[in-house]
């Protein structure tokens, strides 16, 4: 993807976002848009490790919730401002990514994946046992007062998430087009050969895991202000794992565009569907779509488009 195309997309997003806020629309649209943008970040983050490098993370919820709960601690203990929350969420989740990567990335990819699954369960257990952040009951968080220029705090959060989404996409685009991205692709295609071609596979995998985890954490950092009541069952919801996986799979995993397409398509569909059908049925359908795609169209929509255009690359 050329830099110019990317720049156009970014400007487009910013303009659309600004227009959106000026419309003064029904507050509900801001809530929905926030969720969709949050998934743009999560899907993009997942794809850096999953699509670019070939390592599947099932524990998105762990990193996301870690970002959220880091915010809870900082809000409750220090009344920290939002920028600090974002930075802290990114740092802590990034460290978790580094840690779990260091422990498991020298082994087969499947063990990394299993570890991420187990990680989510363990982290949730720890949070449930920690009274300071509300334990299993959950904790209330009060939103700061209204800010100038924005109609409500939720509008502000929407703008923040829009910026985070653009940031995440920029990071993914930068990685993808850099030497690091080429190294990650080599690892994905054939790790043994990559190592013998001089690619420091462990180091690159750790970078990918850290960046990916970091972005997931930053997506979770504003969560407490968004929901105002944080409890483990919602922060660690399996939704996050399945969606951040399904969205890149549906959109296409080899470039930064796929996760964005998947997030917007699937995210919007879900927001619309939740109004009409139960959220559990909604989830079931996502699961079925995921399985269908992984069996029939593993390269996602972008892959299908490419095949139709008769491209040599899958």
């Amino acid at each position, binding site marked *: 993807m050329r830099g110019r195309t990317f720049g156009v997309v970014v400007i487009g997003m910013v303009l659309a976002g600004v227009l959106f806020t000026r419309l003064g629309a029904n507050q509900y649209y801001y809530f929905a848009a926030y969720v969709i943008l949050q998934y743009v970040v999560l899907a993009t983050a997942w794809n850096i490790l*999953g699509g670019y490098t*070939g390592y*599947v993370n*099932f524990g998105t919820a762990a990193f996301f919730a870690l970002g959220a709960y880091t915010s809870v601690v900082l809000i409750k203990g220090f009344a920290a401002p939002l920028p600090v929350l974002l930075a802290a969420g990114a740092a802590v989740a990034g460290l978790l990514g580094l840690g779990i990567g260091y*422990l*498991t990335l020298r*082994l087969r*990819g*499947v*063990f990394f*994946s*299993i*570890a991420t*699954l*187990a*990680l*989510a*369960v*363990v982290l949730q*257990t*720890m949070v*449930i*046992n920690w009274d300071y952040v509300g334990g299993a009951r959950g904790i209330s968080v009060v939103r700061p007062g209204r800010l100038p220029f924005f109609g409500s705090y939720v509008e502000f959060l929407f703008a923040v998430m829009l910026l985070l989404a653009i940031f995440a996409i920029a990071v993914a685009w930068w990685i993808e087009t850099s030497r690091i991205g080429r190294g990650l692709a080599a690892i994905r295609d054939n790790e043994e050969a990559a190592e013998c071609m001089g690619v420091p596979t462990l180091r690159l995998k750790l970078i990918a895991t850290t960046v990916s985890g970091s972005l997931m954490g930053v997506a979770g950092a504003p969560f407490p202000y968004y929901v105002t009541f944080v409890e483990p069952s919602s922060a660690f919801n*399996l939704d996050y*794992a*399945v969606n951040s*996986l399904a969205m890149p*799979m549906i959109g296409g995993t080899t470039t930064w565009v796929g996760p964005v397409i998947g997030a917007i398509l699937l995210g919007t569909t879900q927001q619309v569907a939740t109004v009409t059908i*139960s959220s*559990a*049925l909604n*989830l*079931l359908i*996502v*699961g*079925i779509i*995921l*399985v269908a795609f*992984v*069996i029939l169209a*593993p390269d996602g929509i972008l892959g299908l488009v490419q095949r139709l255009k008769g491209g040599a690359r899958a």
Partner: protein
Amino acid sequence: MVSLDLLANAVVAGILLGGFYAAVSLGVSIAFGLLDVVNIAHPVFVILGSYAVYVTNTAFGLDPIVAGIVFTPVFYLIGVVVYRIYYVSFEKKGQESLRGLVFFFGVLFIVEVGLTLKYGVDYRLVEAQYIGESLRFGPVGIALRLLVPCVVAVLLTLVLYLYLAKTFVGRAIKAVSQDSLALRLMGADPVKVKDVAFGIAIATASLAGALLIMIGPVEPSMNREYIGRVFAVAVLGGMGSIGGTFLAAVIIGVAESLTSTFFGPSWAVAVSFGVLLLALAVRPAGLFGS
């Protein structure tokens, strides 16, 4: 000072629990250990088995173990079908690792959410004569709801062990991961052998599910806490070694029980995770693997 009574009880409970864990892990030991199929959906099939038992127990008063055995052929068929889809979509094309994993995650998800849709998130349990009682041996109390599953698990392990060691199909299963060419030369179709193997793996989930709901109440999301456990057992036990699986399960059971008694029950889940990481770091071949 640690109370000896408490310790003894914790160890005994751990051994019994471990036996049960073996029943749950045998399927993964076969699928992952022998066939190299990363079936993270195995625990959710166990839960499915629990629900099947629950339904027949509440509707017909059917004994859980009997129900578990009755459903075994159904689960065997499910296993064969799932493996066929997996094989055609992924293994044949050499795409097993990434996409196969995602596939099983999708299956896990569909079954878990499906169960939640049908039965909700409430805990379900079964009624049977022996469940409420316990035996006493001096200071040590043994709850029947733990003892019976353990005994059944031991029997299941023995049956599987003998099957894999003594019958033609069983030995073919053990061979298929190492030398499918030799197998073909002997006239056996490796893919059909793997069909059978995976079918058996899922079939064990039926009985394991019955045992699970005997030990305690069940709800759909429980499958996730078992994923770490069963893979810890499979790795520690030496990937495909049936005897090794049983011993590893007991070790983990005891470790969890001790943790639960002295540090609180919610930390038990972290134990298997820790054991898995430790095993992978120090001795990935497992305690009993080659």
